[in-house]
């Protein structure tokens, strides 16, 4: 662990007492007097009052001579007697009371956990990953609540939780969760090793850990799935992935992830499989459209007029006859405007964001066409591709897609559709090189795993998805047995 240094009890107490919210409450039992030291801002004072009251009453009826006697009256589990100073320093920030005898602060002491004060939001509806069908339970900024939410759905002792402290200053608890007997131990060990190797000061969010432990930091693509949805994490766990969350973050990361994990939404599984598959294909098509639509426009308008049939070419030329810019600048100008709108909208409260959308989207667009700064066909293409970049359920992936549009537009402006082909090649090579927790990113397409392809482009019926994907090397392949009775009958036969 980083920043390890020897503490003594006295030095800890001294250093804590520099803060005015570190207080000491005395408790006299007649024979002996004890001190309870704690951060009053970290502790639920009401709970503490109950505890002290109970001890006071106990002291009146019975003589309490030493610390052990006192602790016998504390109606709580998880008491630690004689913890080492390092442990005290840690636990005092996690909502524990430190008890010691007044006469001997250096002597025996104990840690009593009391309910921690929680100033957290009470609503845990999903904000970012919304779905129409299905549960809307999302995680919040409290680690214990998040773990509670997971355990409430996965009622099995096989759901294993490992806690790791990360951050030399924040000492944040980071929870590593997996299902024993499903997840491959190698993946768990690899993730744990990477988490333990982290040297960082303050962990604000799981997504920071995501970047620190990712296999390759020189990529716009997210290599672990980041999600705030409980159903998504549970689904990842039951397929054999490993989930990690840090204290204070409402986001889990799960891995090893593949590119296609980012295009599937839990909703696919709540709708009938035909609809789920249809929506998933719409999503994938939307992403491809979003990546290439405006660059295709630039390529065609700059170099390959021949490709456009003359009926359409007439419309196109008419729409941009007064536009004074090259198609590249025109497209770049509009794409950047859309990015401005998105970035401004993301920083504003939702009500102002709405009016911003109207001002930006409708008024600006209309005015830009009327002022002949851009062609209205390009406006259609750019706003469609902005729209389609948001069809990915995971925000980080839509960021990556929107970012990638710019180099593609640039290449299209330089070499037309050959430039787009170069971009496609670079993209595919890059994707083939990526690894998530050591596993290829584009599996099951490359490397080809024919058996795992069934739940990728389409979401097939539950009757055929009884096995876990093999690329995760799960400890047991069988997830569930599909209805055994179902027979393929001819009509009119029993």
């Amino acid at each position, binding site marked *: 662990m980083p920043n390890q240094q020897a503490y003594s009890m006295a030095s800890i107490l001294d250093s804590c007492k520099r803060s005015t919210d570190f207080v000491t409450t005395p408790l006299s039992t007649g024979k002996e007097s004890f001190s309870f030291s704690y951060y009053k801002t970290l502790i639920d004072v009401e709970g503490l009052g109950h505890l002290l009251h109970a001890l006071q009453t106990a002291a009146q009826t019975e003589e309490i001579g030493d610390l052990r006697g006192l602790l016998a009256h504390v109606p709580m589990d998880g008491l630690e007697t004689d913890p080492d100073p390092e442990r005290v320093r840690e636990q005092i920030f996690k909502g524990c009371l430190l008890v010691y005898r007044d006469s001997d602060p250096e002597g025996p002491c104990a840690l009593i956990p009391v309910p921690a004060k929680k100033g957290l939001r009470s609503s845990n509806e999903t904000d970012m990953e919304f779905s129409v069908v299905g549960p809307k339970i999302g995680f919040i900024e409290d680690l214990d609540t998040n773990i509670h939410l997971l355990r409430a759905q996965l009622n099995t002792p096989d759901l294993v939780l490992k806690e790791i402290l990360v951050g030399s200053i924040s000492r944040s608890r980071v929870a590593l969760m997996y299902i024993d007997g499903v997840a491959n131990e190698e993946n768990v060990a690899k993730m744990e090793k990477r988490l333990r190797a982290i040297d960082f000061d303050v962990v604000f969010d799981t997504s920071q850990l995501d970047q620190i432990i990712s296999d390759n930091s020189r990529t716009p693509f997210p290599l672990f799935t980041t999600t705030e949805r409980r159903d998504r994490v549970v689904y990842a766990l039951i397929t054999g992935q490993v989930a990690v969350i840090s204290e204070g973050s409402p986001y889990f990361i799960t891995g090893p992830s593949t590119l296609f994990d980012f295009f599937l939404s839990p909703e696919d599984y709540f709708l009938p499989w035909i609809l789920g598959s249809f929506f998933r294909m719409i999503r994938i098509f939307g992403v491809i459209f979003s990546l290439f639509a405006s660059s295709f426009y630039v390529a065609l308008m700059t170099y390959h007029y021949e490709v456009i049939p003359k009926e359409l070419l007439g419309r196109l030329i008419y729409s941009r006859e007064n536009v004074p810019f090259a198609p590249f600048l025109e497209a770049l100008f509009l794409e950047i405007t859309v990015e401005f709108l998105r970035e401004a909208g993301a920083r504003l409260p939702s009500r102002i964001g709405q009016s911003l959308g109207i001002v930006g989207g409708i008024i600006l667009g209309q005015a830009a066409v009327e002022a002949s700064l851009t062609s209205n066909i390009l406006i259609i293409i750019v706003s469609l591709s902005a729209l389609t970049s948001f069809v990915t359920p995971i925000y980080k992936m839509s960021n990556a897609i929107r970012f990638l549009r710019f180099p593609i537009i640039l290449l299209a402006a330089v*070499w037309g*559709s050959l430039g787009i082909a170069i971009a496609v090649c670079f993209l595919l*090579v890059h994707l*083939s090189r990526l690894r998530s927790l050591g596993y290829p990113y584009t599996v099951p397409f490359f*490397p080809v795993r024919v058996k795992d392809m069934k739940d990728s482009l389409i979401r097939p019926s539950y009757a055929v998805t009884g096995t876990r994907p093999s690329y995760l090397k799960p400890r047991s392949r069988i997830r569930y047995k599909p209805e055994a009775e179902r027979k393929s009958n001819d009509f009119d036969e029993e």
Partner: protein
Amino acid sequence: MDSPKSDKFTLSPIHLFFLLYVSLVGAGLMDFQRYVSASSGQDGWIAVLAASLFVVLMIWMMYGILSRQAPPGANLVDVNRRYFGKAIGAALNVCFVVYFLWGAFVTLRFYLQVIEVWIFPEMNQWPLVICIFALLYYTVSGGIQTVAGICFWGTLSIFLFVLPQCLPVLPYLHPHNMTPVLDHSAAELFDSTRLMARQFLGCLVLMAVFPYIKEGGRSSKWSYGAAGAAAFIYILMLLLALMYFSPQQLKETVWPTLSVVSIIHVPLMQRLEYVVLNMWLLKMVSNISVGLWAACHSLKQQLRIRPRISLAGALIGFLILFYLVDDPGDTRRIISLYMKTGEYLVFAYIPIVFVISRFSGKTGTSQVGK
């Protein structure tokens, strides 16, 4: 020689299909119809079929050679050293390295020539060449897995983009162009077969990538599958061209495949060859990077040169060659030289080694030869 490859670098047998398919179907797909039909006319498809069968035979022989080696030595470089001795083996290996590089260069040169003539006649090619070289470096330096990855996408792109385009061409075909069947002499057919077989010179790549395939011995069905798929694409393209053009037209058409594609129009697009030719880059990049990878890998085994260095060296060499080989005449000459040399270096070499390995005492573990 090499230690057993870890899971991270090996490929499951199915990937051999993509690697081999990409090596078999190269830039020649654009203009082979002209050569094949030159002497055998409408019977050219028989020549393609015969050439494909010949390649299947070659693949069978390569498996025969490879199965007689101890697993770590089952590759081109070690086979040469085993059967031809240290000095001659090394010389042969260097020959093959040069040959792989040459093949990669020829493909690139040919493709860019088409681009230059068909799409960008006025363009300064250098920025484009440098950009493509960066792409090639990025691909090959990712190792066999990345090369196989791009081969996968390259193969997929052919089947996704090219096959559907055959449908709109159908109304323009003249099936009677195909008659009379079997109207040519055996010598004419042999000529065509020989020209066609030259398209398949890339099959030697199998010997270089073989150690990276898991359960290599059982991968043969994928290799034959690749040969079959290649034959299918070639025959399809040949039939389209034969039925679309009159024999005289076909003689005059430089790139028949592109000319056929150019008449297709779909609701939002026409002149699709602009798009097809550009998307062909994916296929070309995969073909070239397989050759580059095989060259760099063999060089590492033979001379212990680090692949990154030899890769960079090869690309710089390509740049210089690009400067030297500039006009279409030169390109045609180096291509035909490449193909003529290839006949000896590949199609004579494989049977010879096959025979040697059959009767040689120096077998590996499997002892099949005795």
